[in-house]
C-alpha cells in the first residue's frame, strides 16, 4: 500500500562535489567525541570520570532531567577530556580510542517475541535511545510519551546530502529488523517515505506504511512528510528516526552490540575525495577528510542545516554528510547590481542563474548581503510546502506570542524546515535560529 506525496514548493540547490557512489573505510580515529550540544535541550550528567576506561556501549552520561535517557560511548578506550565552555557547559566528551573495540554485551534478542516496553528498555539501556527524536520541538524523545506514529524519511533532498539508501546498502536485514523493533514503540503506524523515482529495497520493507515522495527540497524533510501524512496537533507526539540509525538499532538486536558504524558522504566543491566513508559516530573529522586549507568550511551535516566544525573537530552524532565548501570572507564589488554575479545560485530572478536550472554551482559561505528589516513578501512561501504561513509564524516567534505560534503551526515545524528560508530570504534573517528559540519557549511554557 502506498500513498504518494507530491511536493511542488521548494528549491533544489545544485552544488558541485556530489559524493561518488563508492564506500571506503576511513582510518580509525585516535580520539572520538560525543558532543552533548548535538542533543538539543539535554543537560549531561557525567558518570565516567576523566582517565577511566570504557567499552563501546558503556554509559558516559545521562540526561539530568530524564535519567532514563543515557548516552554511551561509540568506541572502547579511555575518557581523555571533558571539554567545557562558558558556564562550565560540557561541549565535548573526548575518548581516546583503543586500537580495536571491545563491546559491552547487551545480548542477542528475538524482536518478534519482545513487547514494546521491552524494546524501549533495551534501547534505553544500550544507549540507542537518542536516535529516537520527537516532533514537535525536534529533541530527543521522552520515553514516557506515547507517540501517535513513527516516521522515517528514506530520502534526502538537501543539497549534497547523502543518499541514505546507498549508505545503508548492505545492511538491509538490520534495517528490516530495526523497523520491526521500533514499530513496537507505537500503537499507531510506522511510516517510511521513499523516493518515488528509485525502485529500491526500501519499497520492499515490511511492517511499514510506505509513501512515495517526489518534488524538490524540502520534500525529504521528515517534518514535511509528517505534515502531509498525519500532522501533529497540539499535545500530540510523533517520533522520527533516521534510517541509518534504524539499521544500527537492528544490528543491536541481532548481535547484542552497539555498533556505531555509519556510512557518511563527504561532499562539496572542496572535498579532496568526494565519496562515502565508513566510520564510527564521533570520529575526528581530520581522519576522514585529511588536513584542509584554512579557507574551507567544514560542516558536519548538509550545507543548509549542519554545524560548522574545526578541522580537528568531531563529526556530529546524527550527521550522515560532511560538506566542505569554501569560506566566502571576500568582498565583492558592486554586488548589488542586478544580473551581476550569476555564478551564485539564486531563486530570485534578479540574477540570471534561474536560466540554467541544471548547472551545478560552487558556493561559498558569504552572506551575500547584510541583515535588513523584513520587506520582501512571498518568497518564503515559495519554499514552504506546508499549510503554514512562514513569515507570519516567524514574526510571532520573534514576538514570543505562544497562542499565535500555536495557531500558526509551531508544532508542525522544525528548524530544518526553515533552512531554505534562511537561504532565499532577501533580508538575510536567521529563520532557523528564530524557530529553534521559539520551540525552546514552547518547551518551557507548554511542554
Amino acid at each position: 500500500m502506498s500513498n504518494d506525496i507530491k511536493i511542488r514548493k521548494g528549491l533544489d540547490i545544485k552544488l558541485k562535489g556530489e559524493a561518488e557512489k563508492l564506500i571506503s573505510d576511513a582510518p580509525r580515529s585516535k580520539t572520538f567525541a560525543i558532543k552533548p550540544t548535538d542533543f538539543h535541550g539535554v543537560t549531561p550528567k557525567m558518570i565516567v570520570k576523566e582517565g577511566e576506561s570504557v567499552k563501546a556501549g558503556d554509559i558516559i552520561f545521562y540526561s539530568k532531567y530524564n535519567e532514563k535517557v543515557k548516552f554511551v560511548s561509540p568506541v572502547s578506550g579511555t575518557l581523555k577530556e571533558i571539554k567545557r565552555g562558558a558556564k562550565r557547559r560540557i561541549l565535548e566528551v573526548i575518548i581516546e580510542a583503543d586500537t580495536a573495540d571491545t563491546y559491552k554485551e547487551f545480548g542477542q534478542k528475538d524482536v518478534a517475541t519482545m513487547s514494546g516496553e521491552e524494546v524501549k528498555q533495551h534501547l534505553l539501556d544500550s544507549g540507542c535511545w537518542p536516535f529516537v527524536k520527537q516532533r514537535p520541538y525536534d529533541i530527543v524523545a521522552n520515553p514516557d510519551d506515547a507517540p501517535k506514529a513513527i516516521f522515517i524519511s528514506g530520502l534526502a533532498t538537501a543539497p549534497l546530502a547523502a543518499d541514505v539508501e546507498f549508505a545503508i546498502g548492505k545492511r538491509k536485514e538490520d534495517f528490516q529488523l530495526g523497523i520491526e523493533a521500533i514499530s513496537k514503540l507505537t500503537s499507531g503506524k510506522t511510516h517510511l517515505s521513499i523516493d518515488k523515482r528509485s525502485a529500491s529495497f526500501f519499497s520492499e520493507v515490511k511492517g511499514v506504511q510506505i509513501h512515495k515522495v517526489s518534488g524538490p527540497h524540502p520534500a525529504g524533510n521528515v517534518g514535511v512528510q509528517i505534515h502531509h501524512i498525519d500532522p501533529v496537533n497540539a499535545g500530540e507526539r510523533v517520533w522520527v528516526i533516521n534510517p541509518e540509525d534504524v539499521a544500527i538499532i537492528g544490528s543491536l538486536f541481532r548481535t547484542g552490540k552497539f555498533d556505531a558504524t555509519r556510512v557518511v558522504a563527504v561532499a562539496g566543491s572542496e572535498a579532496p575525495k568526494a565519496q562515502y566513508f565508513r566510520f564510527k559516530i564521533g570520529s575526528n573529522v581530520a581522519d576522514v577528510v585529511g588536513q584542509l586549507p584554512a579557507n574551507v568550511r567544514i560542516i558536519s551535516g548538509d550545507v543548509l542545516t549542519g554545524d560548522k566544525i574545526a578541522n580537528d573537530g568531531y563529526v556530529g552524532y546524527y550527521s550522515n554528510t560532511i560538506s566542505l565548501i569554501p569560506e566566502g570572507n571576500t568582498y565583492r564589488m558592486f554586488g548589488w547590481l542586478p544580473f551581476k554575479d550569476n555564478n551564485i545560485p539564486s531563486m530570485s530572478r534578479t540574477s540570471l542563474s534561474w536560466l540554467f536550472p541544471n548547472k551545478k554551482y560552487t558556493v561559498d559561505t558569504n552572506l551575500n548581503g547584510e541583515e535588513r528589516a523584513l520587506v520582501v513578501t512571498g518568497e518564503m512561501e515559495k519554499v514552504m510546502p506546508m499549510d503554514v504561513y512562514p513569515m507570519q509564524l516567524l514574526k510571532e516567534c520573534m514576538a514570543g506570542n505562544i497562542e499565535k505560534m500555536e495557531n500558526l503551526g509551531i508544532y508542525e515545524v522544525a528548524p530544518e524546515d526553515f533552512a531554505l528560508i534562511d537561504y532565499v530570504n532577501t533580508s538575510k534573517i536567521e529563520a532557523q535560529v528564530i524557530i529553534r528559540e521559539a520551540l525552546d519557549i514552547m518547551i518551557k511554557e507548554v511542554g
Partner: protein
Amino acid sequence: MNALRKKLDQLKKPFNKGEKWEKFGPAFNAFDTFLYVPNHTTKKGAHIRDAVDLKRTMIVVVLALLPALFYGIYNVGYQHFSQLGDTFSFWDAFAHGAWKVLPMVAVSYIVGLGIEFVFAIYRGHEVNEGYLVTGLLIPMIMPVDIPLWMVAVSVAFAVVIGKEAFGGTGMNILNPALTARAFAFFAYPTFMSGNKVWVSDATNVDAISGETILGTLAAGKEVAHNTWSMFSGAIPGSIGETSTLWILVGAAVLILTGVGSWRIMAGGVIGGAFMGFLFNLWSANELMAFPWYQQLIVGGFAFGIVFMATDPVSAAQTQKGKWIYGILIGIFCIMIRVFNPAYPEGVMLAILLMNVFAPTIDHYVVQSSIKRRKKRLSAATVKSA
C-alpha cells in the same frame, strides 16, 4: 580594486566596534556596502545564502522607474513649450524637464537619506535601502512646479511620521511616498491641483489649458486628448504618472524579475476595469461615461498600481490577500474619482485606504489556515476521546 579596498578598510578603522566613531558606523557602512558586498560569512543557520539582497531588490525597482522618469522629464519640457506655443526640439524639451525635475530628485534624496542616516545612527542599525525607491517615487508623483521646500517638507513628514515613527523600514503601515504626496496635497492644495500646476512656469502665462484629464472631466468639460496621447503620456499630470506606455515597461521589469507582485497589478487592473465598466453602464455624468479603458490609462492609476500598490511592506502579504488588495484598490480608485470630484485623483487615496486595511485582509486569509488547524485538532480529540 584591491587598492581601493585597502583604502576603505583604512578609512573604516575608526568606525569599527570599540573605536571612537563607532556610533557613526552605520553611516560609513552605508557607503561601504554600496561599493562592496561585505565579507560577512554565515555564522548561524544555513551555511550558504542566495545572491539576492535588499539592495539588489531595491535597485531593480529604481531601474524599473527610469523609463517613466525619463519620459516624465521629456514631457515636462514638451508640455511647457507646446503650451507656450514655442517651437522646440526633443533635446530642448528634455533639457528643460531635467532642469526642473533633477533638483526635486536631489532634494528628495538628500532630505530623505539624511533623516534615514540620523535614525540609523540613533537606533544603531544599518541604513535600510528602501529609501532608494521612495526617494525617486516622491518627485515622480509631484506636480512639476511645486517649490523645492515643499518637496523637502513632504519628504521629512513621510519619513519621520510615515515610517520612522512606526519603527522604520518594514514596519510602516502606509506607503511613505504616498504619505508625502498626501501631505503635500492637503497642506498645500493650491500647489497640488488646479489648471496651472501641471505645466512648468504656467503661472507666468495667461490662457493656459493645463488641466489634467481627470480635472477636465470633473469640471464637466470635453477632453481634448485622444486615447493614444493618454497612453503614450503627452498629457499634463504629475511628473512620472502620465505615460502608461513607459510605466508598462517598468511593470514588465518588476514582473519578470519577480520583484513586484503581478497579483496586485493584475488585481488592480481587474478591479479598475470592472468598476469603470459599471459606471459606463450608468453614465450619469462625464466622469461616469468616461470609457473604462481610458480610466486605466489616465491620471495616476497605472503608476499607482505598478509602483505604489506593490510596495511589499504596506501591501497585503499573503498570496490571496494580494489579489483582494489589488482588486479593491482598483475598485476604490475609480469610485473615488467618480463620486468625489474634489479629489479627481482617486488612486492615491485608494492605495492609502487599502494600506490601512491590508493587515485586516491578511488576518482573514491567515485565519483560514488557523481554522483548518483547529478543526483538525478537534477532530483528533474526538477520535481519541
